[in-house]
């Protein structure tokens, strides 16, 4: 069998020309070319994944597909996936940011989805809908303001989590070691054997800074919880109540 190179958008792909009948071979050639162009490169495979996603959306409805995507993202282990992703792509802050986003977006999505689902059946939403409010207006101006407490608390928790994960990834050497950060200081401390050499002043301060930052952000979170949920506020003692009343 002779082979011929077809130059397509993704580069050259060899196809085998089957012998004999001209009409069918032409059809086969066209189909084979399309097939090869479609599958020749991994980047095209990504494109086909996106196309497949939209097909699924068309078949099952966007709600089902998005929910499935969120749940699957939630169940895959975050740190191992982050390590594998960060290991294969060029090192740097952009890679780490994208990797952390990719592995951790689903938690907050799930929380807000549950909350919005419970808000959807409340009376003020029904009232807004019967007034003829558009859907996006209801979402952003009626439902969302009631969820601000969760969103802000989630933002602070995510910040803590990102700081810890970033330091962990840097510590493992998966970040750019030349860019200074608390995690990379710990990485170089480990490489230089600071632990075995007793050089405590090298690895104690960065860790302490991360711990203090984390503790501070947690306290901010408690404060936000108190503002958002009045039940958690401390009751004023009788002395203070008298002062307030006077």
């Amino acid at each position, binding site marked *: 069998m002779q082979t011929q190179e077809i130059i397509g958008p993704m580069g050259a792909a060899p196809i085998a020309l089957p012998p004999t009948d001209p009409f069918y071979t032409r059809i086969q050639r066209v189909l084979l070319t399309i097939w090869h162009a479609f599958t020749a490169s991994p980047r095209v495979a990504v494109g086909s994944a996106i196309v497949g996603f939209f097909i699924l959306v068309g078949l099952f409805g966007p709600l089902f597909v998005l929910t499935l995507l969120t749940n699957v993202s939630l169940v*895959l282990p975050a740190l191992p996936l982050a*390590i594998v992703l960060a290991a294969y792509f060029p090192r740097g802050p952009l890679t780490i940011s994208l990797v952390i986003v990719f592995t951790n977006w689903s938690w907050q999505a799930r929380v807000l989805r549950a909350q919005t689902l419970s808000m959807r059946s409340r009376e003020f939403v029904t009232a807004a809908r019967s007034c003829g409010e558009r859907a996006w207006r209801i979402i952003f101006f009626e439902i969302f303001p009631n969820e601000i407490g969760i969103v802000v608390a989630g933002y602070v928790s995510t910040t803590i989590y990102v700081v810890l994960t970033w*330091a962990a990834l840097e510590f493992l050497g998966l970040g750019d070691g030349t860019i200074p950060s608390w995690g990379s200081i710990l990485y170089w401390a480990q490489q230089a054997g600071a632990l075995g050499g007793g050089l405590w002043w090298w690895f104690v301060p960065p860790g302490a800074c991360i711990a203090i930052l984390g503790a501070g952000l947690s306290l901010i979170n408690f404060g936000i919880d108190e503002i958002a949920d009045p039940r958690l506020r401390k009751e004023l003692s009788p002395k203070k109540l008298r002062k307030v009343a006077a």
Partner: protein
Amino acid sequence: MRHILRRILFYACAIWVAITLDFFIPRLAPGDPVAALVGKMSTKGYVTPAMQQTLAAEFGLNTHDSILVQYFRYLGNLLHGNLGNSIQYFPTPVFQIIGQDIGWSLMLGGVAVIISFTLGCLFGIITAWKRSSLLDTILSPAMNFLSAIPYFWLALLSLFIFAYLLNWFPLTGGSYDAINVDPGWSLDYIGSVIQYAFLPALTLVISSLAGWMLTMRNSMITTLSEDYVLMARAKGLSEGRIMFRYAARNAILPNITGFAIAIGAIVGGQLLTEMVFSYPGIGYALFQAVGEQDYAMVQGVFLIITLAVLGANFLADMLYAFLDPRVRVERSA
């Protein structure tokens, strides 16, 4: 029954996504793994073009097959349990190395999770029962503080204090003292294993204790306001009996699913623990493979970790459906 079916389908989908990700990530990444491998080997000696070809063929990196054919061949290999050969420990198969390491991870993680679960639940029950007592006011904020400390810093600190300064525990890695002790059911071996595993287990227990305790405490506080607890008290049952047989039994539900998930996380290989303490488990294997650019190993270990976590989550779902019948009737989110 419908609920179980839905969960099975969901986990099948998640497994497929994990396998596909595991296949595509190395191939999507820029750079050429053969070049990296050749670069590594040329530090040990000259690499002829013929050797390069053999290496590429060995690791399946030279096929001009389309990506779909490679994908299905990968799936076929997986079904046969063939995860490829490790580059660092060539030609040992990846599956064999994982088999050796996973035992240590399971032992370390299993012991740590059981201890921290038991202690955490006990503390949670007691602090909820005697809310605002001295024990509660000291323990709850202390636990909050402990859980906020970044784990690997706690690990580094404990290694420094207990291994370097006080010399109670070994500083270098390993699972037992390979120089002086032979494996076997001798007191020496068991003692050595405990000595090497003590610090990692201690840091794991300290960092996860707070989570168990606070969840248990919150869930107990909600349960204690239920009517049946009031009824039990009205019947005149002893405090201990109410605390354990009535309240704790119902309050422990969220923690039980958390426990099953934590078991999954063990095989997830307490990555940071093993990396800081150089404990030869599956997390350390992943760490070394990433450092040495042993692509076959990275893929294999990641796949095993993901499958184990998914399996544990599945068991947790089934366990929860068994323990709490209300779940079977509700629509799953």
